[in-house]
């Protein structure tokens, strides 16, 4: 995130649908961040189950204070990875 004290936040995408929405409480106002993505299940083994990778296709916010949400890396293939950049109005 830019234009705020928070620099980085970790959000996990839903493995079973192609739209994940997070409600964010910000100065007593609830804002919604939408991330549209394509989940891809990778079978590892019967004991370990499936790992899920995603391809982010779009991201936007309902909050007018958010200037833009840009995708910096569409492929979600690791737990710690920079994928989105949220620009806030000053």
């Amino acid at each position, binding site marked *: 995130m830019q234009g705020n004290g928070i620099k980085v936040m970790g959000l*996990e995408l*839903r*493995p*079973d649908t192609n739209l994940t929405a997070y409600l964010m409480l910000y100065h007593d106002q609830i804002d919604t961040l939408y991330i549209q993505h394509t989940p*891809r*299940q*990778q*079978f590892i*083994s*019967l*004991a*370990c*189950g*499936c790992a*899920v990778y995603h391809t982010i296709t779009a991201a936007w916010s309902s909050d007018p204070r958010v200037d833009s949400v840009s995708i910096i890396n569409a492929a979600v293939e690791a737990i710690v990875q920079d994928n989105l950049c949220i620009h806030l109005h000053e």
Partner: protein
Amino acid sequence: MNRLLLIVTLCCLALCASAREYADTAVYQGLSVKLDIGNSVLELARSAGKIQSYEAAINVRLAKRFYPTLEVGYAMAERGADGGMHKGQGGFGRLGMDLAVVKKGASENNMLVGLRFGGAYQNYDLTDVKLHSEYWGEQRLNFYDQQRFDCWGEIVAGCQVQVYKGFQMGWYVRMKLLFTRNAKEGEVMPYYVPGLGFRKDFNWGFNYYLAYKF
């Protein structure tokens, strides 16, 4: 029962009578039909009857030293782990060539080394597969009616010995290297591959054959 015994005896006698001797100078030195017992029993024993694999092979002896080989088989597997279940069945084939290590004139007894290219096509279901997410919790997924073709290469070593007239037996140890390691978009790879075994990049196999040479 006696009639069955008589038929089997007559068949054996007919086979013995048809075993042929080939001239030393002939390129074609006969054809062997092999039935695997070792891998079938091993798979059944290791999996407590949940995996069945049957295979047969044909090889031709050329110039006393070269053995072009075709192997075909069928396997069924039903295997569970941590709630997940693989249930599949399919056919497989291997094509390759063996080379007699020691050139011993007209002897039918040989140590063999060779290469195989194998392929398997199977239908399978993967059910109750775990999908764990730290935030969203654990879910169970089902993948029904999946189809997949896998192929692999093998280095084999073994022997083939003459037991009585045309009857032969032999064994092979196989080192298998899986070529098809990646899944297509949305595809879930099987846990077991007929002819290869459990899906690993490297795998081992063993066959013990009973054979008859025509």
